[in-house]
């Protein structure tokens, strides 16, 4: 298990959002309560290999729309479909996982990434199997909470 996984993932989120969107995302203190803002979008990207897992990045829909505006340099009125928002969230998740995967690969945990997928809904929860290691971190930006969840299969089972 990677001891500093939390740091690696937080660094990846800060780097991706800072570079691609010019947006500062502030990690929240551990155990900060997760706030429901209604309907959310989750971008998910998995990685398979010497280390196997999946990363979800959740954003409330209004926040996801703001992120899409910023990453594409368009106004809200120019976002003409959910598809644009989905794609942006998927790409952000892809870059975060790519960043994390690069650090893991350099430490010998080589793996390949999956194509991004999107989940939309309200009050949905991921229920991992009991052997899965699960970590949840939250960030704050533009008065919204961004939640990042990573689930890892223990290395012995990989």
């Amino acid at each position: 298990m990677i001891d500093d996984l939390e740091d690696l993932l937080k660094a990846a989120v800060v780097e991706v959002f800072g570079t691609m969107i010019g947006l500062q995302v502030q990690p929240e203190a551990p155990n900060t309560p997760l706030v429901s803002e209604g309907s959310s979008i989750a971008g998910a990207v998995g990685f398979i290999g010497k280390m196997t897992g999946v990363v979800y990045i959740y954003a409330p829909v209004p926040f996801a729309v703001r992120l899409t505006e910023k990453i594409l340099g368009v106004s809200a009125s120019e976002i003409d479909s959910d598809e644009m928002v989905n794609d942006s969230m998927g790409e952000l998740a892809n870059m975060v996982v790519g960043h994390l995967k690069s650090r893991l690969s350099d430490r010998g945990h080589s793996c390949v990434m999956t194509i991004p997928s999107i989940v939309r809904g309200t009050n949905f929860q991921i229920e991992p199997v009991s052997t899965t290691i699960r970590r949840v971190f939250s960030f704050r930006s533009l008065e919204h909470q961004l939640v990042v969840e990573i689930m890892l299969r223990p290395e012995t089972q990989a």
Partner: protein
Amino acid sequence: MGRKILTVDDSKTIRMIVARAFKEYDIDMFEAQNGVEGLAVASREHPDLIILDYTMPIMDGYEMLTKLKSDPELKAIPVIMLTAEAGRENVLKIAKQGVRDYLIKPFKEDVIIERVSRIVDLKPKGESADKTKRYDDPLGILLVDDKPAIIEQIVAGLRDTPWKVDGVGSTGLAMDRCGRGIPDAVLISLSLPETGAFTLFQMLRAGAKTKSVPVFGLCVKTAAEDQARAQQVGFTGIITKPIDFEDVKIKITRALGLDTSYKYFTMKDGVLVLNLPPTFTPSVANDILLHLRNQVTSAVDSGLDKMVIDMSTVKTADITLIKLGLSSLQLCAELAIKSAMIGSDAVTNECKNYEETKDWRFVTSHAEALGVLGASAVAA
């Protein structure tokens, strides 16, 4: 026609970001969502560059690259790999496939522009369609010299032009100015501290928007080593101190390909008039000769068959004037158009002394020239 760039990425977001990065450039953008589509578009469009994602459904970037490099028609197309995976293993795998460069996501727009500009000549949109700039356009000249007296001297020396000379004292300020607007030409003192001139030159050449801007080095005539180094690294030219401002204007004019023909050629009363200015120097003569054939040919094309060569303000008939006169008359004969010459008293008298010019017949006014040509003045 603009250059073509093909972006192959399953993410519309990335395709839009890449397209946005190049929207200010004269680039035709093409898109594909996976390797299969990418190969099809590459075969059809033969782009100048492919920006290729690594992880895609249907056919990933690695497979597309392999197929591209095995196709004799497509293998020469340079590829920049765009990947979210920056691990050493991945980078080595990509490098072995013969990509020209790779870019790690996340990336900033200016980074992708800079990388692409190393491979494709990026021209700002509209530049290629613009009409040729004229000498009397308000050009921006960036002057970089740490000696305020030199800046003042050059500003004063170019005051008779419509050019705006912006003097700064350091390379940092120069780059700051370039960030606010691209100058038409840059003059840099080669004696800036810590070889600053050469550092600045490299920075300008590395910038997509500044790499084509003419850059001149300023130095004293005896600074042979600096001059040689500047020429070696590719400075557009050298301007030596004490500064000959006519020489500076001509060097900038030539480097920018400025149209100066309007200074010498006009249409008046249905004839083409070549006006020689009072300060008639070898440089001016060369400038006129650059335009002479085009101007006369264009006039003939548009139906004119008469030309007046007006030397009435020229003070002496030297070899430069005589050569230009001979070239002009020879061209008129070649194109079968009638010509007449207006001369000052000095020119008229001096020309009688030379074998080549003793038969030249001068008149003293435009009206007389029209009479010789069988034309008449058009009422204003």
